[in-house]
C-alpha cells in the first residue's frame, strides 16, 4: 500500500531562514506528488505539484520542491521564509491507477519575526 512520511512534525524558524521539509513516499510505480498548505483558519490549498518532466517544481509564494526518484523523496524548500508562511504543510501522492490522495501526517511550521 502507498504511504507518505513527513519526518519533521514541528519546525520553528526565524524570518529569512531557509526551509526544507522532508517527504518520502512508498510506492513502486509511477506517482504524482503534491504539497498542500493549510494556513490558520483556512482550508487546504495546493502549493505545487509534480506529474512528469523537470523534477524541480516551482509553486506559489516562492516555494519549490524536487522529486528524486531514487530516494522516493519530494522535499519542499524555500530560501527565505516569512512570518506569513506559518501554516501546516502536507505532502501527498496519487498514482496512475488511483485518484485518491494519500497524505502524510503534516508538518507544522512556525515562523517568528
Amino acid at each position: 500500500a502507498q504511504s507518505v512520511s513527513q519526518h519533521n512534525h514541528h519546525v520553528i524558524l526565524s524570518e529569512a531562514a531557509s526551509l526544507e521539509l522532508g517527504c518520502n513516499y512508498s510506492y513502486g510505480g509511477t506517482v504524482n506528488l503534491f504539497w498542500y498548505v493549510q494556513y490558520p483558519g483556512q482550508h487546504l490549498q495546493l502549493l505545487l505539484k509534480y506529474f512528469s518532466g523537470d523534477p524541480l517544481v516551482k509553486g506559489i509564494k516562492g516555494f519549490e520542491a524536487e522529486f528524486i526518484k531514487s530516494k522516493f523523496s519530494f522535499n519542499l524548500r524555500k530560501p527565505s521564509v516569512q512570518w506569513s508562511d506559518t501554516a501546516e504543510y502536507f505532502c501527498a501522492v496519487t498514482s496512475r491507477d488511483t485518484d485518491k490522495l494519500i497524505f502524510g501526517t503534516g508538518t507544522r511550521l512556525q515562523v517568528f519575526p
Partner: protein
Amino acid sequence: GAGVSQSPRYKVAKRGQDVALRCDPISGHVSLFWYQQALGQGPEFLTYFQNEAQLDKSGLPSDRFFAERPEGSVSTLKIQRTQQEDSAVYLCASSSKIKTGTYEQYFGPGTRLTVT
C-alpha cells in the same frame, strides 16, 4: 460557486445520533472526494464519486458510514449511530478532470464533528 462549500461547519452530536454532512462542489466538477482528518493527522481518504457513481468507497471505516451524490453535484456523507472515534474534521474536495491521478483537488473548509 467560488469554491467548495460544506455545511454545517461545526456539528456536535451525542453518541448514537445520526449525522448528515453536506458538500457543494465547484460547479461543473465531475469528481468529488471525502476525507477524514483526525486531530494531528493528515487527511485520510473515505470515498470518491465521478458524477453520481461511487467509484471507490474503500476508505469508509465501517458500514455506519454512507455517502451519496444522487444528481452528480451535491454530496452527503451520513454517519449512523455516531461513536466518539468518529470525532474528526470531514473534508470534501472536488476536481474538474477525469484522467486518473493527474489533476488538482480543491478542498472545502471542512465540517468539524464532535461526538460527546
